[in-house]
Each structure stands twice: as structure tokens, then as C-alpha cells.
């Protein structure tokens, strides 16, 4: 049990390398072939993982170029798909707050936020002492991003060599991991409600708002319902806690 910053960093990196880094790495290996298709060199494909660090945004970027979309449209689609980073990052930064932390350090921490690092951090950080959270998070996140950049390169080189059944398994890795990771991180009833409604309302939202806006609509509706349920359950307890 080491409590030094270096020890926490290595502990984070080790926890990432057990499974999460490989899951996100496999899911981003699919970016390689997409980048090759539009004529980008392998180092730019890998740079897209390091600089964008958002699977859906990278898929949209390369998929839209291949489809011949206008640059303005591509930027807007990427922007919308990355909107989820606002609530995700806002919810993770208070856990990583420490005295004397500047905006630059916060922006650096924010760059590493992705679905995997977010779900895993939300689950693991509250159990760590405040001073150990930033080193742990940086170790965890750097292991994830470096493995993923490497896997994007591997995907680039392997392009099209995988049989279809394994290709399907590769694409399923992201949804199955995120479902389990979110389930593991659900600490109370509102969290569970947010997850169940978030899944169940999506087909309806797709019908109402179309692909592209359905995620945002579902997130706000399901998240708000879950929040209100949690608040209704908290209220009576608050009153009981008041002094007579």
C-alpha cells in the first residue's frame, strides 16, 4: 500500500491495463481502417486518437469525409456528438480538485475524459484520498490513451484482415463494457433509473428526433427523471435530520 504520487500513478496505470485500456483500445482500432480509407497516413490516424480522444467524434470525422460531407457539417456533427463531454467533465472535475489547482491543470485533466475513463473514475475515485486522485487518474488515463493510439495504428495495419464474426465481436466490445461499467458504478436508485431509461427511451427518441439528436434528448429526459426520483426520496430524510 503505497501512498506516494508515483505509486498512485502506477496503480492507476496497472488498473487500466487489466482490462479498460484494452477495451477502449480495441474499440478505437476501428479508426485505423477509416483513416486509411480517406488517405490519411498512419501517424495522423494515431494522432486522431491522441488529440480528439472520442471514438464517436473520430468515427463521424472520417465517416463524413468518406461520404463527402461539407467541412462545416462535419465540424457541427462532431461538436454535437461531443456535447456529452460537458456534463461528464463537469461531474468528474470536482472529484479531482485539489488546492492550488490552476485552469491549465484542469484543462489537461479534462482532455483525458472519455466514456471509459469517466465511468471508471466515477466508480474508483471516491474511495481514494483526495491527494491521491490526480496521480491515479493520470496513470489510468495515460495508459488508456497510449494503448489506444497504438491499437489505432494496429487497426490501420490490419485493415480488412479480420473475419466477419470477430469483427462483430470487436464492435460489441464497447457497448458491453460500457453497460457493465456503468452498472458497476450505479450506487443508488437514481443511477439505476438513469441507466434503464437511458437505454429504453433511445428508440423512441430516435423516432422523434432522428439519429444525431436522439442521444441528447434521451440523456436530458432520462437523467432529469432519475434526478427528480432521487430528490423526492431525499427530501423526507432531510426534514428528519433537522433539529427539533
Amino acid at each position, binding site marked *: 500500500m503505497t501512498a506516494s504520487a508515483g505509486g498512485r500513478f502506477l496503480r492507476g496505470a496497472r488498473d487500466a491495463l487489466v482490462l479498460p485500456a484494452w477495451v477502449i483500445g480495441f474499440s478505437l482500432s476501428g479508426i485505423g481502417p477509416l483513416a486509411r480509407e480517406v488517405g490519411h497516413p498512419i501517424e495522423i490516424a494515431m494522432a486522431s486518437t491522441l488529440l*480528439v480522444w472520442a471514438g464517436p467524434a473520430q468515427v463521424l470525422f472520417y465517416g463524413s469525409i468518406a461520404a463527402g460531407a461539407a*467541412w462545416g457539417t462535419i465540424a457541427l456533427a462532431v461538436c454535437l456528438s461531443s456535447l456529452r463531454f460537458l456534463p461528464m467533465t463537469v461531474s468528474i472535475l470536482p472529484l479531482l480538485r485539489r488546492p492550488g489547482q490552476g485552469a491549465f491543470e484542469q484543462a489537461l485533466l479534462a482532455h483525458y475524459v472519455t*466514456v471509459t475513463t469517466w465511468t471508471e473514475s466515477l466508480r474508483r475515485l471516491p474511495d481514494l484520498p483526495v491527494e491521491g486522485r490526480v496521480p491515479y487518474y493520470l496513470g489510468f488515463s495515460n495508459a488508456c490513451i497510449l494503448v489506444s493510439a497504438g491499437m489505432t495504428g494496429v487497426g490501420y495495419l490490419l485493415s480488412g484482415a479480420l473475419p466477419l464474426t470477430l469483427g462483430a465481436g470487436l464492435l460489441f466490445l464497447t457497448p*458491453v463494457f460500457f453497460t457493465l461499467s*456503468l452498472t458497476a458504478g450505479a450506487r443508488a436508485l437514481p443511477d439505476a433509473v438513469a441507466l434503464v431509461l437511458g437505454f429504453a427511451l433511445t428508440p423512441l427518441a430516435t423516432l422523434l428526433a432522428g439519429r444525431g439528436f436522439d*442521444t441528447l434528448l434521451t440523456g436530458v429526459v*432520462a437523467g*432529469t427523471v432519475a434526478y427528480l426520483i432521487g430528490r423526492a426520496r431525499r427530501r423526507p430524510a432531510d426534514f428528519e435530520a433537522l433539529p427539533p
Partner: protein
Amino acid sequence: MTPPLAGLDGPWWPLLSLVLFAALPTALWRVMAVLFARRIDERSEAFTWVKTVASALVMSVVAGLVLSPSGALAAVPLVGRLGSLVAGLAAFFLARRSLAAGVVAGEAVLIASAWYAMGR
């Protein structure tokens, strides 16, 4: 394929386009979050709301990947995709909340369904 912007084509165009049209539109929200998060308390009502909304957003992305998949995953019928997710969740709880057990079980059922659906 989208042609490079006039006057900006050249060896640097792939990197430039990546930064302008993918990295910056994503970084925008991360930076906005830094500006907002400074004023948010971990135990506040706003924080609780933002967290449930973010959870639901991610779950919705997952639902999209499972319900309207692309590529090779689209060749697996819906019942196979949903069944694999349920198998993953079941294994996760049966193995005392083990992520690895859940992922392996879900993947095994999915690959078996894919193998079956694609006629071996």
C-alpha cells in the same frame, strides 16, 4: 470524399483538418466544463443532476450501438445483440460484479450468434 479547403491543401492538410474539424469541436466542451466546474460543488443539486444526465447520455450512446449497429455487428440479429448484453449482465452479477467475467460472457454469446447468423 470531401476535397481539402481551397488554398490549404498540402502535406499538412490531414493534420490541419483533424485539428480544425475534429479536435477543436471536441475540446470546446472540455474547456467549457473547466469554466463551469469551478463553480460547482460535488454535493450540490446541480452536480447530482449533471451526473445522472451524463449517465443517461452514455447509456443512450450504448443503446444506439446495440439497436442500430454498423458494419459487421449489423449482421447479428437484434435478439442476438440484446441476448449477449443480457448474458454479460447475468455473468457480471453471478461472478460477484466482475467486469471481466461479464465482458467475456457477453462476447462469447455475441460471437456465437454472429457465427450462427452468418451461416458458419
